[in-house]
């Protein structure tokens, strides 16, 4: 795990972020329906991955249940909106539900850590899937909920793919800003302390129990928000997308991008969601290539792509510093000898 703040010291991340934003705003104008759908899916998955990055990357709590929260959010949104409630009500329901369930899922983390925590969250994730599949009175079981409506925002319809894409992008923007605020607030600092050394944090007055629960709850809420957007994006919700595989995929996105880096989830979701579409010539082979890529990347750098970038920057800085030092020494000795 590498720190959140090291990459933010230079101006480069901001320039790249700005360039990325411009691309995200302009690119879709030239895209067909399917392209917009994929780009919207990227935004949705990024939100879910940001949530997991908060829980895992910053607060250091392993979770294999993020996919289940996307599912809970999707069902909450779909059930609310197909019953005539506005999108905002579905979203609120998703947020409240995920906050409560996420908070409760945090309790095991107070007793067990690391791989045991991974196993518990894995079990929870599978249980949630069983509920989605079996509680037909609520979720319509394997037949799924059809015709999930897209919301009207300030009186504007988001039925069209472009409008809905911008809606997803705006949501991602808001989530990013809120997360950016959060990780730079004292809470974010406490999360990192919890990840790096809970015993020391406790001795400094940090209520590690409460921060652990908060980390789980907030991470889960972002999963729920992603779900509430997923439902109107696909316009159909059934249990199949919310198996353990989704949780694994979200975890891989976070790790591949760079766990504990603000931009990690953006990059991870990009590779997981967008790249397969651009590499369509490789169709079935793509997932195989992706798997090999993930394995090779982890063998090389367990801190993900941004971990590599950070290391390169740090190396260059050290080299420059030592060059300056060497130059200074050279001048110094030259002056002395003259």
């Amino acid at each position, binding site marked *: 795990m590498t720190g959140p703040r090291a990459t933010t010291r230079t101006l480069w991340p901001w320039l790249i972020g700005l360039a990325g934003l411009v691309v995200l705003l302009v690119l879709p104008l030239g895209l067909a329906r399917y392209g917009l759908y994929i780009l919207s899916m990227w935004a949705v998955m990024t939100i879910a991955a940001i949530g997991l990055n908060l829980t895992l990357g910053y607060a250091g709590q392993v979770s294999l249940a993020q996919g289940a929260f996307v599912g809970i959010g999707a069902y909450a949104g779909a059930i609310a909106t197909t019953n005539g409630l506005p999108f905002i009500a579905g979203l609120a329901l998703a947020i409240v539900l995920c906050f409560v369930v996420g908070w409760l899922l945090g309790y095991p983390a107070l007793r067990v850590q690391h791989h045991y925590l991974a*196993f518990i969250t894995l079990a929870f994730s599978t249980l949630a899937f069983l509920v989605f599949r079996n509680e037909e009175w609520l979720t319509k079981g394997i037949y799924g909920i059809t015709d999930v409506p897209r919301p009207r925002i300030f009186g504007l319809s988001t039925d069209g793919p472009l409008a809905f894409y911008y809606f997803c992008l705006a949501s991602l923007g808001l989530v990013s800003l809120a997360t950016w605020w959060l990780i730079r607030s004292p809470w974010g600092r406490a999360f990192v302390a919890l990840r790096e050394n809970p015993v020391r944090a406790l001795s400094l007055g940090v209520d590690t129990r409460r921060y652990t629960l908060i980390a789980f709850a907030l991470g889960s809420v972002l999963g729920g928000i992603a779900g509430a957007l997923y439902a109107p994006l696909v316009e159909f919700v059934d249990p199949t997308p919310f198996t353990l595989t989704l949780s694994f995929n979200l975890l891989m996105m976070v790790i591949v991008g760079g766990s504990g880096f603000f931009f990690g989830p953006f990059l991870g979701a990009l590779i997981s969601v967008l790249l397969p579409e651009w590499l369509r010539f490789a169709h079935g082979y793509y997932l195989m290539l992706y798997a090999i890529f*993930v394995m090779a990347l982890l063998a090389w750098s367990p801190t993900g792509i941004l971990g590599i970038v950070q290391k390169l920057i740090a190396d260059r800085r050290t080299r420059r510093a030592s060059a300056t030092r060497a130059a200074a020494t050279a001048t110094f000795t030259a002056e002395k000898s003259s």
Partner: protein
Amino acid sequence: MANLLNLLISGLATGAIYALVAIGFTLLWQTSQTINFAQGEFVMMPAFFILAALHAGVPFWLSIIFGVLISLLLLGLVFKKALVDPMLKHGVLPIAIATMALSIGMKESVKEFFTAEAEPFPSLIPAGNVNIFGVEVSLQSIGVLVLAIVAVTALNLLLNRTSVGHQMQAAAQNPTVARIIGVPVERMILYTFLINAGLVALASVLITPIYLAKFSSGEVLGLAAFIAAIVGGFNQVRGAIVGGLLLGVIDNLGAAYISTQYRGAIPLFLLIVVILFRPQGLLGRAEERTV
């Protein structure tokens, strides 16, 4: 009553297969902190190695030998050298995630290079029933149980009665000390990977005739083995056996007497309860290995 006995025996048979897979799972954890999320796919693959040979016209028995050898090579040697070894220094999580990626890779390769459909798979054991104390029990179940017991007994003899076995245990319990007293720890770890490959190949041959060969069939099995290993005791071979059998029986009884919809939930609850209140597992030692 007869029905119950039948359920019990078929449950034990399924459980015995879970146990084989779970034993391999705990061995990898003990010797190299590898939580293999692809263990289910490791069971799915050998069936396809064998099917590949069969489709090429190789006789069944020779195909099995071929499948086992390929499994030892790919799921044992190559898995260790190419994936686990380079990542060992990074800790538990990166390896675990890499095995998630591996499981995706394996499923996709089978789908892409072989088939996305379920394939029938010939059985080693003839069909039919056998009469035990007046109860008709399927020969398949008995055969699976017997073969699994033979395999586990052989493994136990190897681990507890031979010097290689003792060295393997030493390497698992305390690699540093083992190295000092001259145990070739690296080779011992490799052996455990080969044993795991052998166990999953055996499990594959036993279970595939029942559930057919399909790229996704590892998902359920992997989860079951995984739960069995943890419930029994993550750091113990004995625990994996008990956990596997217990889970098999619970699974079958649950399917018969409780709703089939939520039979999958029982092992999951069991898993959560065990982790929270007895994280070392039913039979596990309280202390974790320290490295």
